[in-house]
């Protein structure tokens, strides 16, 4: 078991920092190139959502692993999501003017084993991403 917490200002330039942080954190598990790419992309989507939609000052990222299962919590204390079911639908976006594709959750679901969303209006959002790495020979 290992765990780190990262608290960053909710800024677009910190999205790449979040990707670097998660890549560094899981490197001791010797993941495959594809697994790193999947996890980096999912984290990028989750943190982007928090930065664009959350509207809070900070985004927190709790990273942990137990054996080869990685758990990533991305949390903000911002506006929350009114209808989680709708927000998870492919192509759903509230930011069409920003050229958002509405594919964030779809990508997270495709690249991770499990995606859990906890949110309520005014109470922030926590997205929990889980993926178990394959055993390396």
């Amino acid at each position, binding site marked *: 078991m290992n765990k780190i917490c990262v608290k960053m200002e909710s800024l*677009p330039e910190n999205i*790449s920092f979040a*990707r670097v942080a998660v890549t560094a954190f899981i490197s001791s598990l010797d993941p495959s190139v*594809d697994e790193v790419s999947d996890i*980096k992309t999912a984290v990028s989507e989750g943190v*982007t959502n928090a930065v664009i939609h959350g509207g809070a000052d900070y985004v927190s990222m709790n990273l942990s692993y137990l054996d080869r299962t990685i758990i990533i919590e991305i949390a903000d204390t911002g506006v929350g999501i009114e209808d989680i079911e709708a927000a998870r639908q492919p192509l759903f976006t509230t930011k069409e003017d920003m*050229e958002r*594709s509405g*594919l964030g959750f779809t*990508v997270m679901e495709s690249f991770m084993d499990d995606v859990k969303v906890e949110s309520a209006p005014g109470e922030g959002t926590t997205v929990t991403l889980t993926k178990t790495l394959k055993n390396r020979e």
Partner: protein
Amino acid sequence: MGLKIEIMGTALLAQPDCEIDHHSAERLRAQIDAAFEKSSCRHIILDFSKISFMDSSGIGMVIGRYKNAEKRGGRLYITGMNGDMGRLYNISGLAKIITRTDTVEDALEAITNRRD
């Protein structure tokens, strides 16, 4: 963030050299749009051979440039995509609307062979 832009006949060739996420996508679109508006090009070729990472912000950026090319009766071509990006291209449905070629030369040839 690096971005090389070149006019090749009726096509604007954009070669970004960075990771594409929400942060860089906004700057890429501003620079590509400014160059496209100034030019009389109809087509846009996005050469992704130097892109090491892209998330769904890149998909939004691609769709936006596709619409701009379409407004001028042109098309958007993507070249040099790696395997990861290929997966995003398929998941997003981009594969249905945007032509993907291996190289810039292939995209230019496809433009030359258009019948309109």
